[in-house]
Protein backbone atom coordinates (compact mmCIF):
# COMPACT_ATOMS: atom_id res chain seq x y z
CA UNK A 1 0.00 0.00 0.00
CA UNK A 2 1.24 3.48 -0.83
CA UNK A 3 0.12 6.31 1.41
CA UNK A 4 0.70 9.72 -0.13
CA UNK A 5 1.40 11.78 2.97
CA UNK A 6 0.54 15.05 1.22
CA UNK A 7 -2.88 13.63 0.31
CA UNK A 8 -3.32 12.26 3.83
CA UNK A 9 -2.60 15.75 5.19
CA UNK A 10 -5.19 17.26 2.84
CA UNK A 11 -7.74 14.76 4.15
CA UNK A 12 -6.94 16.22 7.59
CA UNK A 13 -7.46 19.72 6.09
CA UNK A 14 -3.75 20.54 6.23
CA UNK A 15 -2.49 22.22 3.09
CA UNK A 16 1.02 23.11 4.21
CA UNK A 17 4.12 21.47 2.73
CA UNK A 18 5.54 21.46 6.27
CA UNK A 19 4.12 18.89 8.67
CA UNK A 20 4.90 20.06 12.15
CA UNK A 21 3.62 19.71 15.74
CA UNK A 22 2.17 16.84 17.75
CA UNK A 23 -1.52 17.46 17.03
CA UNK A 24 -0.90 17.27 13.28
CA UNK A 25 1.17 14.10 13.74
CA UNK A 26 -1.67 12.56 15.79
CA UNK A 27 -4.29 13.47 13.16
CA UNK A 28 -2.27 11.91 10.36
CA UNK A 29 -1.55 8.81 12.44
CA UNK A 30 -5.28 8.20 12.99
CA UNK A 31 -5.99 8.74 9.30
CA UNK A 32 -3.14 6.44 8.24
CA UNK A 33 -4.31 3.69 10.59
CA UNK A 34 -7.77 3.76 9.01
CA UNK A 35 -6.09 2.87 5.71
CA UNK A 36 -3.55 0.42 7.14
CA UNK A 37 -6.35 -1.62 8.75
CA UNK A 38 -7.45 -2.53 5.24
CA UNK A 39 -4.07 -4.03 4.25
CA UNK A 40 -3.13 -7.70 4.26
CA UNK A 41 -0.99 -9.10 7.05
CA UNK A 42 2.72 -8.60 6.43
CA UNK A 43 2.16 -5.96 3.74
CA UNK A 44 4.59 -3.09 3.24
CA UNK A 45 3.09 0.36 3.73
CA UNK A 46 5.05 2.97 1.76
CA UNK A 47 4.82 6.43 3.27
CA UNK A 48 5.46 8.69 0.29
CA UNK A 49 6.57 12.17 1.38
CA UNK A 50 6.64 13.72 -2.09
CA UNK A 51 6.14 17.53 -1.91
CA UNK A 52 6.60 17.56 1.87
CA UNK A 53 9.52 19.79 2.84
CA UNK A 54 9.88 19.79 6.62
CA UNK A 55 8.63 17.30 9.18
CA UNK A 56 9.67 18.20 12.69
CA UNK A 57 10.54 16.00 15.67
CA UNK A 58 7.10 16.29 17.28
CA UNK A 59 5.38 15.19 14.08
CA UNK A 60 7.90 12.35 13.63
CA UNK A 61 7.25 11.22 17.21
CA UNK A 62 3.49 11.12 16.77
CA UNK A 63 3.35 9.79 13.21
CA UNK A 64 6.37 7.76 12.07
CA UNK A 65 7.55 6.47 15.45
CA UNK A 66 4.02 5.43 16.47
CA UNK A 67 3.44 3.67 13.15
CA UNK A 68 6.70 1.75 13.55
CA UNK A 69 5.87 0.88 17.15
CA UNK A 70 2.48 -0.51 16.21
CA UNK A 71 3.71 -2.30 13.06
CA UNK A 72 4.78 -5.45 14.96
CA UNK A 73 1.47 -6.05 16.68
CA UNK A 74 -0.60 -5.11 13.62
CA UNK A 75 1.80 -6.99 11.31
CA UNK A 76 2.74 -4.52 8.62
CA UNK A 77 6.01 -2.92 7.54
CA UNK A 78 6.82 0.75 7.06
CA UNK A 79 8.98 2.06 4.22
CA UNK A 80 9.75 5.75 3.70
CA UNK A 81 9.87 7.31 0.23
CA UNK A 82 10.81 10.75 -1.15
CA UNK A 83 12.19 12.10 2.10
CA UNK A 84 13.59 15.64 1.90
CA UNK A 85 17.05 16.38 3.28
CA UNK A 86 15.61 18.24 6.28
CA UNK A 87 13.12 15.47 6.99
CA UNK A 88 15.92 12.90 6.84
CA UNK A 89 18.04 14.89 9.30
CA UNK A 90 15.11 15.24 11.71
CA UNK A 91 14.05 11.58 11.44
CA UNK A 92 17.63 10.43 12.00
CA UNK A 93 17.92 12.67 15.07
CA UNK A 94 14.67 11.36 16.56
CA UNK A 95 15.59 7.72 15.90
CA UNK A 96 19.02 8.15 17.49
CA UNK A 97 17.58 9.88 20.58
CA UNK A 98 14.88 7.22 20.88
CA UNK A 99 17.43 4.44 20.66
CA UNK A 100 19.74 6.06 23.21
CA UNK A 101 17.08 6.83 25.78
CA UNK A 102 14.65 3.96 25.47
CA UNK A 103 17.30 1.27 25.35
CA UNK A 104 15.43 -0.05 22.32
CA UNK A 105 16.44 0.78 18.78
CA UNK A 106 14.19 2.13 16.10
CA UNK A 107 14.84 2.31 12.34
CA UNK A 108 12.91 2.48 9.09
CA UNK A 109 13.56 1.12 5.62
CA UNK A 110 13.51 3.60 2.77
CA UNK A 111 12.94 3.40 -0.93
CA UNK A 112 15.90 5.40 -2.16
CA UNK A 113 19.48 5.87 -0.98
CA UNK A 114 19.79 8.54 1.67
CA UNK A 115 22.54 11.03 2.39
CA UNK A 116 24.01 8.31 4.66
CA UNK A 117 24.28 6.18 1.48
CA UNK A 118 21.98 3.61 3.06
CA UNK A 119 18.55 2.22 2.36
CA UNK A 120 17.36 2.92 5.88
CA UNK A 121 17.34 5.60 8.55
CA UNK A 122 18.38 4.72 12.09
CA UNK A 123 21.29 3.59 14.23
CA UNK A 124 22.16 0.19 12.73
CA UNK A 125 25.54 -1.54 12.77
CA UNK A 126 27.70 -2.08 9.71
CA UNK A 127 26.85 -5.80 9.61
CA UNK A 128 23.13 -5.02 9.78
CA UNK A 129 23.54 -2.36 7.15
CA UNK A 130 25.33 -4.78 4.78
CA UNK A 131 22.52 -7.32 5.09
CA UNK A 132 19.86 -4.68 4.32
CA UNK A 133 21.83 -3.52 1.27
CA UNK A 134 22.23 -7.11 0.04
CA UNK A 135 18.51 -7.81 0.42
CA UNK A 136 17.62 -4.53 -1.25
CA UNK A 137 19.69 -5.43 -4.30
CA UNK A 138 18.65 -9.08 -4.45
CA UNK A 139 15.12 -8.53 -3.11
CA UNK A 140 15.23 -11.80 -1.15
CA UNK A 141 17.75 -14.34 0.00
CA UNK A 142 18.09 -17.64 1.82
CA UNK A 143 20.08 -18.01 5.01
CA UNK A 144 22.85 -19.87 3.19
CA UNK A 145 23.21 -17.04 0.66
CA UNK A 146 23.40 -14.50 3.45
CA UNK A 147 26.02 -16.61 5.25
CA UNK A 148 28.07 -16.82 2.08
CA UNK A 149 27.76 -13.07 1.36
CA UNK A 150 28.43 -11.81 4.88
CA UNK A 151 31.05 -14.33 6.00
CA UNK A 152 29.42 -14.30 9.42
CA UNK A 153 29.04 -17.58 11.30
CA UNK A 154 25.51 -18.97 11.48
CA UNK A 155 25.41 -18.75 15.27
CA UNK A 156 26.20 -15.03 15.02
CA UNK A 157 24.05 -14.12 12.02
CA UNK A 158 20.82 -15.57 13.42
CA UNK A 159 20.44 -12.98 16.22
CA UNK A 160 21.32 -10.21 13.74
CA UNK A 161 18.58 -11.35 11.35
CA UNK A 162 16.15 -11.74 14.23
CA UNK A 163 16.93 -8.20 15.41
CA UNK A 164 16.46 -6.75 11.91
CA UNK A 165 13.17 -8.59 11.66
CA UNK A 166 12.10 -7.25 15.09
CA UNK A 167 13.01 -3.76 13.92
CA UNK A 168 10.73 -4.40 10.90
CA UNK A 169 13.46 -3.43 8.42
CA UNK A 170 13.56 -6.89 6.81
CA UNK A 171 10.85 -9.51 6.28
CA UNK A 172 11.04 -13.23 6.97
CA UNK A 173 8.72 -15.51 5.00
CA UNK A 174 9.16 -19.23 5.49
CA UNK A 175 12.95 -19.52 5.57
CA UNK A 176 13.65 -16.69 3.15
CA UNK A 177 14.58 -13.13 4.04
CA UNK A 178 13.16 -10.20 2.07
CA UNK A 179 13.78 -6.50 1.83
CA UNK A 180 10.85 -4.42 3.03
Amino acid at each position, binding site marked *: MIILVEKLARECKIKSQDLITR*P*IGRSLFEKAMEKIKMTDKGETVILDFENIKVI*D*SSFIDEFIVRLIEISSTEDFYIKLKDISLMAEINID*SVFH*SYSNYKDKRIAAAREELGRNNKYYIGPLTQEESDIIDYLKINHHSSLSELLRFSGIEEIKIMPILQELYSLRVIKKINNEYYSV
Partner: protein
Amino acid sequence: MIKESKDIIILPDRFRDPYTFESVLSMNSSLLESSGTVDMSRIAFIEPYSMISFLLMGRNFLRKRGEKLKLIHIPIHIHQYLNRMDFFSKGIFILTETLPEGMSLKRNPISNRLLEITEIPGKERQGVNALSSVISIFRKRSELILKFWMDESIVDYFVTVLSELCQNIFEHSLDSGFVTMQTYKSGKENIARLVISDSGVGIRGSFEGKKTLNYKTTSQLIELALTTPISSKREFGYGLCQVNSITEKLKGTIFIRSESSSLTVLYNKIEKGKNIFHRNDLPYFEGTQIAISLSA
Protein backbone atom coordinates in the same frame (compact mmCIF):
# COMPACT_ATOMS: atom_id res chain seq x y z
CA MET B 1 18.78 54.02 35.17
CA ILE B 2 17.86 57.63 34.83
CA LYS B 3 14.76 59.02 36.47
CA GLU B 4 13.78 62.36 35.06
CA SER B 5 11.37 62.92 37.88
CA LYS B 6 9.62 60.61 40.30
CA ASP B 7 7.13 59.71 37.63
CA ILE B 8 9.13 59.27 34.42
CA ILE B 9 11.77 56.64 33.64
CA ILE B 10 14.16 57.51 30.83
CA LEU B 11 15.35 54.49 28.89
CA PRO B 12 18.99 54.48 27.75
CA ASP B 13 20.02 53.83 24.14
CA ARG B 14 20.77 50.18 24.94
CA PHE B 15 18.53 48.33 22.50
CA ARG B 16 21.32 47.31 20.10
CA ASP B 17 21.89 43.65 21.02
CA PRO B 18 21.08 41.14 23.78
CA TYR B 19 24.16 42.14 25.81
CA THR B 20 23.60 45.89 25.93
CA PHE B 21 19.89 45.32 26.59
CA GLU B 22 20.83 43.87 29.99
CA SER B 23 21.00 47.42 31.32
CA VAL B 24 17.35 47.95 30.34
CA LEU B 25 16.38 44.63 31.94
CA SER B 26 18.14 45.76 35.12
CA MET B 27 15.54 48.56 35.31
CA ASN B 28 12.65 46.10 35.38
CA SER B 29 12.06 46.12 39.15
CA SER B 30 12.23 49.95 39.27
CA LEU B 31 9.84 50.07 36.36
CA LEU B 32 7.37 47.86 38.21
CA GLU B 33 7.45 50.26 41.17
CA SER B 34 7.19 53.38 39.05
CA SER B 35 4.10 55.23 37.91
CA GLY B 36 4.56 53.60 34.50
CA THR B 37 5.63 56.43 32.23
CA VAL B 38 8.65 55.71 30.05
CA ASP B 39 10.58 58.30 28.07
CA MET B 40 12.07 56.76 24.91
CA SER B 41 13.66 59.91 23.50
CA ARG B 42 17.24 58.61 23.87
CA ILE B 43 16.71 55.43 21.86
CA ALA B 44 18.36 55.60 18.45
CA PHE B 45 18.13 51.96 17.36
CA ILE B 46 16.16 48.86 18.28
CA GLU B 47 16.94 45.32 17.16
CA PRO B 48 14.44 42.41 17.37
CA TYR B 49 15.61 40.79 20.65
CA SER B 50 15.48 44.08 22.55
CA MET B 51 12.11 44.90 21.02
CA ILE B 52 10.51 41.60 22.08
CA SER B 53 12.08 41.76 25.55
CA PHE B 54 10.75 45.28 26.05
CA LEU B 55 7.33 44.04 24.91
CA LEU B 56 7.53 41.35 27.61
CA MET B 57 8.52 44.01 30.18
CA GLY B 58 5.41 45.93 29.20
CA ARG B 59 3.25 42.82 29.43
CA ASN B 60 4.64 41.94 32.86
CA PHE B 61 3.87 45.49 33.99
CA LEU B 62 0.31 45.16 32.71
CA ARG B 63 -0.15 41.78 34.42
CA LYS B 64 1.33 42.85 37.75
CA ARG B 65 0.00 46.36 37.97
CA GLY B 66 -3.20 46.01 35.97
CA GLU B 67 -2.34 49.08 33.92
CA LYS B 68 -0.44 49.80 30.71
CA LEU B 69 2.99 51.41 30.45
CA LYS B 70 2.80 54.85 28.91
CA LEU B 71 5.45 55.51 26.24
CA ILE B 72 6.39 59.12 25.61
CA HIS B 73 8.84 61.03 23.40
CA ILE B 74 9.37 58.19 20.95
CA PRO B 75 11.68 59.32 18.13
CA ILE B 76 9.79 59.22 14.84
CA HIS B 77 12.02 56.61 13.19
CA ILE B 78 11.68 54.33 16.24
CA HIS B 79 7.94 54.89 16.27
CA GLN B 80 7.77 54.04 12.56
CA TYR B 81 9.80 50.87 13.06
CA LEU B 82 7.81 49.65 16.09
CA ASN B 83 4.59 50.39 14.28
CA ARG B 84 5.81 48.44 11.23
CA MET B 85 6.68 45.47 13.45
CA ASP B 86 3.18 45.44 15.02
CA PHE B 87 4.68 46.25 18.41
CA PHE B 88 1.83 48.54 19.40
CA SER B 89 -0.97 46.31 18.15
CA LYS B 90 -0.64 43.94 21.11
CA GLY B 91 -2.54 46.31 23.40
CA ILE B 92 0.24 46.47 25.98
CA PHE B 93 1.26 50.14 25.85
CA ILE B 94 -0.39 53.53 25.90
CA LEU B 95 0.87 55.99 23.30
CA THR B 96 0.51 59.69 23.87
CA GLU B 97 1.73 60.60 20.42
CA THR B 98 0.62 59.25 17.07
CA LEU B 99 2.68 59.16 13.89
CA PRO B 100 2.06 62.17 11.68
CA GLU B 101 -0.18 61.40 8.71
CA GLY B 102 1.68 59.70 5.86
CA MET B 103 4.65 58.79 8.08
CA SER B 104 3.79 55.11 8.58
CA LEU B 105 6.19 52.73 6.84
CA LYS B 106 4.59 51.08 3.84
CA ARG B 107 4.05 47.34 3.91
CA ASN B 108 5.27 46.66 0.41
CA PRO B 109 7.09 43.54 -0.79
CA ILE B 110 10.48 45.31 -0.76
CA SER B 111 10.27 45.92 2.99
CA ASN B 112 9.40 42.32 3.74
CA ARG B 113 12.77 41.36 5.17
CA LEU B 114 10.99 40.66 8.41
CA LEU B 115 8.34 38.73 10.28
CA GLU B 116 6.13 41.05 12.28
CA ILE B 117 5.76 40.29 15.99
CA THR B 118 3.29 37.44 16.33
CA GLU B 119 1.88 36.08 19.56
CA ILE B 120 2.19 32.32 20.05
CA PRO B 121 -0.63 31.38 22.42
CA GLY B 122 0.07 29.08 25.36
CA LYS B 123 -2.70 26.63 24.42
CA GLU B 124 -1.81 23.84 22.01
CA ARG B 125 -4.55 24.24 19.41
CA GLN B 126 -4.23 28.01 19.08
CA GLY B 127 -0.44 27.71 19.29
CA VAL B 128 -0.36 25.26 16.36
CA ASN B 129 -2.53 27.59 14.25
CA ALA B 130 -0.34 30.61 15.03
CA LEU B 131 2.82 28.65 14.28
CA SER B 132 1.45 27.39 10.95
CA SER B 133 0.62 30.94 9.97
CA VAL B 134 4.10 32.23 10.94
CA ILE B 135 5.79 29.48 8.92
CA SER B 136 3.59 30.16 5.92
CA ILE B 137 4.54 33.88 5.97
CA PHE B 138 8.20 33.01 6.55
CA ARG B 139 8.25 30.74 3.49
CA LYS B 140 6.79 33.52 1.34
CA ARG B 141 9.38 36.07 2.55
CA SER B 142 12.34 33.77 3.11
CA GLU B 143 14.18 34.82 -0.07
CA LEU B 144 14.24 38.39 1.20
CA ILE B 145 14.84 37.63 4.88
CA LEU B 146 17.67 35.20 4.15
CA LYS B 147 18.94 36.91 1.00
CA PHE B 148 22.59 36.94 2.14
CA TRP B 149 22.64 33.31 3.24
CA MET B 150 20.39 31.70 0.63
CA ASP B 151 21.06 28.15 -0.36
CA GLU B 152 18.93 25.10 -1.05
CA SER B 153 18.41 24.01 2.54
CA ILE B 154 18.53 27.13 4.73
CA VAL B 155 14.80 27.87 4.52
CA ASP B 156 13.96 24.35 5.68
CA TYR B 157 16.52 24.66 8.48
CA PHE B 158 14.84 27.83 9.71
CA VAL B 159 11.37 26.27 9.44
CA THR B 160 12.62 23.51 11.77
CA VAL B 161 14.09 26.08 14.20
CA LEU B 162 10.87 28.13 14.20
CA SER B 163 8.83 25.02 14.73
CA GLU B 164 10.91 23.62 17.59
CA LEU B 165 11.23 26.89 19.51
CA CYS B 166 7.63 28.04 19.10
CA GLN B 167 6.36 24.64 20.23
CA ASN B 168 8.39 25.00 23.41
CA ILE B 169 6.16 27.97 24.26
CA PHE B 170 2.90 26.06 24.29
CA GLU B 171 4.39 22.74 25.40
CA HIS B 172 6.60 23.92 28.24
CA SER B 173 6.44 27.58 29.22
CA LEU B 174 2.88 27.64 30.64
CA ASP B 175 2.53 31.08 29.06
CA SER B 176 2.11 32.65 25.67
CA GLY B 177 5.09 34.16 23.89
CA PHE B 178 6.15 36.18 20.89
CA VAL B 179 8.13 35.48 17.73
CA THR B 180 9.72 37.90 15.28
CA MET B 181 12.51 37.88 12.70
CA GLN B 182 14.36 40.51 10.76
CA THR B 183 17.39 41.05 8.60
CA TYR B 184 19.08 44.38 9.26
CA LYS B 185 22.39 46.11 8.79
CA SER B 186 24.75 46.83 11.67
CA GLY B 187 27.83 48.67 10.44
CA LYS B 188 29.12 46.62 7.52
CA GLU B 189 27.46 43.48 8.76
CA ASN B 190 24.11 42.03 7.67
CA ILE B 191 22.39 40.29 10.54
CA ALA B 192 19.40 37.94 10.38
CA ARG B 193 17.92 37.52 13.85
CA LEU B 194 15.10 35.22 14.87
CA VAL B 195 13.70 35.89 18.35
CA ILE B 196 11.29 33.68 20.27
CA SER B 197 10.53 34.69 23.85
CA ASP B 198 8.08 34.13 26.65
CA SER B 199 7.72 35.12 30.28
CA GLY B 200 6.65 31.67 31.49
CA VAL B 201 8.19 29.27 33.99
CA GLY B 202 11.70 29.48 32.51
CA ILE B 203 14.04 26.60 31.73
CA ARG B 204 14.73 25.73 35.37
CA GLY B 205 10.99 25.72 36.14
CA SER B 206 10.31 23.57 33.12
CA PHE B 207 12.83 20.92 34.24
CA GLU B 208 11.91 21.07 37.95
CA GLY B 209 10.55 17.53 37.99
CA LYS B 210 13.68 16.01 36.42
CA LYS B 211 15.72 15.07 39.47
CA THR B 212 18.16 12.96 37.47
CA LEU B 213 19.73 15.94 35.70
CA ASN B 214 23.08 17.01 37.06
CA TYR B 215 23.69 20.76 36.98
CA LYS B 216 24.59 23.54 39.37
CA THR B 217 23.61 26.69 37.54
CA THR B 218 20.79 27.54 35.16
CA SER B 219 23.29 28.27 32.38
CA GLN B 220 24.63 24.72 32.79
CA LEU B 221 21.07 23.41 32.46
CA ILE B 222 20.63 25.48 29.28
CA GLU B 223 23.83 23.96 27.91
CA LEU B 224 22.57 20.47 28.81
CA ALA B 225 19.32 21.13 26.96
CA LEU B 226 21.28 22.32 23.93
CA THR B 227 23.64 19.39 23.79
CA THR B 228 21.64 16.45 25.18
CA PRO B 229 18.21 15.28 24.05
CA ILE B 230 16.48 15.90 27.39
CA SER B 231 12.84 16.80 27.79
CA SER B 232 10.89 18.13 30.74
CA LYS B 233 7.76 16.16 29.85
CA ARG B 234 8.91 13.01 28.13
CA GLU B 235 11.76 10.54 28.57
CA PHE B 236 13.81 12.51 26.08
CA GLY B 237 13.44 15.47 23.73
CA TYR B 238 15.02 16.93 20.66
CA GLY B 239 13.97 20.56 20.30
CA LEU B 240 16.88 22.63 21.58
CA CYS B 241 19.40 19.97 20.53
CA GLN B 242 18.18 20.15 16.96
CA VAL B 243 18.22 23.97 17.06
CA ASN B 244 21.80 23.84 18.32
CA SER B 245 22.86 21.42 15.64
CA ILE B 246 21.27 23.52 12.87
CA THR B 247 22.84 26.74 14.21
CA GLU B 248 26.21 25.00 14.15
CA LYS B 249 25.66 23.92 10.53
CA LEU B 250 24.77 27.50 9.60
CA LYS B 251 27.71 28.94 11.61
CA GLY B 252 25.33 31.18 13.52
CA THR B 253 25.01 32.19 17.15
CA ILE B 254 22.55 31.23 19.88
CA PHE B 255 21.70 33.42 22.84
CA ILE B 256 19.39 31.96 25.47
CA ARG B 257 18.39 33.88 28.58
CA SER B 258 16.27 32.50 31.38
CA GLU B 259 15.64 34.20 34.74
CA SER B 260 19.09 35.33 35.96
CA SER B 261 21.20 33.31 33.54
CA SER B 262 22.23 33.27 29.94
CA LEU B 263 24.19 31.08 27.58
CA THR B 264 25.79 32.30 24.36
CA VAL B 265 27.15 29.90 21.75
CA LEU B 266 29.14 31.40 18.90
CA TYR B 267 29.55 28.98 16.01
CA ASN B 268 30.78 31.78 13.76
CA LYS B 269 33.95 32.21 15.82
CA ILE B 270 34.94 28.64 16.65
CA GLU B 271 38.41 29.05 15.21
CA LYS B 272 39.07 31.78 17.74
CA GLY B 273 38.86 29.35 20.69
CA LYS B 274 36.22 29.34 23.38
CA ASN B 275 32.75 29.65 21.93
CA ILE B 276 30.37 29.02 24.86
CA PHE B 277 29.78 31.76 27.42
CA HIS B 278 27.86 31.28 30.68
CA ARG B 279 26.41 34.03 32.85
CA ASN B 280 24.49 33.50 36.06
CA ASP B 281 24.55 36.91 37.72
CA LEU B 282 22.07 38.78 35.56
CA PRO B 283 19.05 40.73 36.74
CA TYR B 284 16.06 38.43 37.21
CA PHE B 285 13.62 38.36 34.31
CA GLU B 286 10.85 35.75 33.98
CA GLY B 287 10.67 33.15 31.24
CA THR B 288 12.96 32.23 28.37
CA GLN B 289 14.21 34.55 25.66
CA ILE B 290 16.03 33.12 22.65
CA ALA B 291 17.82 34.81 19.75
CA ILE B 292 19.28 32.86 16.81
CA SER B 293 21.46 35.05 14.59
CA LEU B 294 23.36 34.75 11.35
CA SER B 295 25.79 37.35 10.13
CA ALA B 296 27.29 38.07 6.72
